[in-house]
């Protein structure tokens, strides 16, 4: 059955967005990522205008991350204190990131910087997670990090994060949240796939709490983005979002259940493989001659 999408001005077979939502929601519940880096390009491939795809994806991530956060919260896997600190940093970083994009656009090489940031960040994160998870270099790392740990401990506002079982200066999550916020704004993504490694490798949080906490902060980011997109750009397609969330909310619950059955290392390896596959796909897109040399311009 086909439904017409009033903002995307296109028609779609409902099985496709519901199925896509289910798969991306599953990843969301499993790994604590919003899945925008997968969903938005897939929607564009289906003929949804790029700007509508990105805005509508934010709206459906609100539903998927609510569903996922709720599932993880039920089993005590959401560190709200850590989530709020990351959010504060992410918000400030986002403001800087938007300014950086403006400057890059004025300089005329925004697209090049965005694409390169995307490939480098995905490639570095994916490779690091993959190698680390395979070799389990836990002991060696602890030795290496002892100096860094000392430095982190010397920072003010030392705070105990009970759910995560770690103690850090509150400055740390704010700063790293800000760093992810800047990159996310530049790359035009939610940043879940960057936030997860930050929480795992820098904040040393257990993988299952990382997933729940990441979803919690993604939820708030996407509420903000959805509102701004609807208010300023009029790009949110409500019907498409409903179709996507029908799949993603269920997928997020199933993902959370599956995630509890997998070990943290297994989750990291699977996420690393997905991130690397997406990186390779982007590299192919950059190097192979595209079928069309013109595409819809963003914005209005």
């Amino acid at each position: 059955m086909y439904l017409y999408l009033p903002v995307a001005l296109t028609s779609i077979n409902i099985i496709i967005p519901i199925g896509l939502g289910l798969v991306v929601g599953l990843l969301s519940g499993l790994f604590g990522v919003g899945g925008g880096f997968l969903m938005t390009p897939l929607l564009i491939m289906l003929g949804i205008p790029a700007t509508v795809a990105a805005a509508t994806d934010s709206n459906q991530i609100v539903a998927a991350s609510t569903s996922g956060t709720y599932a993880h919260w039920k089993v005590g896997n959401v560190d709200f204190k850590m989530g709020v600190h990351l959010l504060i940093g992410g918000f400030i970083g986002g403001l800087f990131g938007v300014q950086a994009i403006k400057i890059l656009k004025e300089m005329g090489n925004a697209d090049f910087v965005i694409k390169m940031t995307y490939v480098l960040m995905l490639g570095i994160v994916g490779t690091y997670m993959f190698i680390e998870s395979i070799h389990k270099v836990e002991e060696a790392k602890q030795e290496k990090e002892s100096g860094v740990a000392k430095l982190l401990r010397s920072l003010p506002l030392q705070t105990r994060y009970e759910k995560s079982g770690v103690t850090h200066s509150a400055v740390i999550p704010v700063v790293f949240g800000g760093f992810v916020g800047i990159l996310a704004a530049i790359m035009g993504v939610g940043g879940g796939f960057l936030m997860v490694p930050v929480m795992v490798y820098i904040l040393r949080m257990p993988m299952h709490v990382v997933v729940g906490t990441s979803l919690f902060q993604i939820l708030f980011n996407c509420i903000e983005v959805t509102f701004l997109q609807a208010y300023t750009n009029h790009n949110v397609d409500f019907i498409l979002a409903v179709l996507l969330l029908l799949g993603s909310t269920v997928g997020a619950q199933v993902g959370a259940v599956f995630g509890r059955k997998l070990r943290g290392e297994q989750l990291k390896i699977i996420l690393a493989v997905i991130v690397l596959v997406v990186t390779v796909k982007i590299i192919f897109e950059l190097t192979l001659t595209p079928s069309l040399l013109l595409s819809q311009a963003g914005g209005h």
Partner: protein
Amino acid sequence: MKISNFKSQISKFIIVGIMLLSLMTYSGAASAELTINANHDYITIDFFYNGSTVSVSGSSDTGTDLIIKITASDGHEILKQKGKAAGFLWMNMGTLKFEHAPNLYFIHSTKKIDKILSKEDMNNYVIGYPALSKYIEITPASKDEERTKWFGEFIRYKEASKLYASSSEQINTTNENNRQKYYMKTDWPYQAPPGEYLVTVYAVKDKKIIEKAETKVLVEQVGIIKMLSGMAANNGAVYGIISIVIALGAGFGVGMVFRKGGGAH
């Protein structure tokens, strides 16, 4: 005096007669000789809309070739242009503005257009892609070589979106009672936005357009589609809040359902 008055009356009568006759040769003949009818001239976009079909039919003099053009009014389109950065990386390198570009352009004919119509008439009536290339302004593309390249890419982009099409096989003709009946059925793409579209049929003889007739197709959103697109465009804040509240509700709702279902674990 009477004779001169009579002569003057006669000459006025002849002048008016010639004027009327010349008028009839073009517009009058278009309605009397060449006819056009679109069977589906009002297309409504509702919740389950997935495109439509439009049939164009009518009659013309026997021995004439026909060209049917369906087009939206002129607009402008800004598109991103891909190019190679650092010699090997394909990415967006800027934007191109296509001025006077109709959003939809279908051109169908009984034979290949360049075989039946002179270049002069093709350009005058903007019939066929070569004529359209002269009509659309592309900025910034100053050199002829650049213009040709990007116009070709524009056509490929529009054809991929199903908004431009060109063929010389879709019009069926039959001869009945010394008249030529024509009929064409074409898919109406769901990608065509709401608006008014002009359908023109041209009768061609000896490489010249001798008659034309027009009709219109109106595409309009209705019901919930009209309400939602109106709200998204005119009341973005309320639309955004409703979208967020429904997403939150759906997320919690499904969470509650799974909580109940998960009680058995």
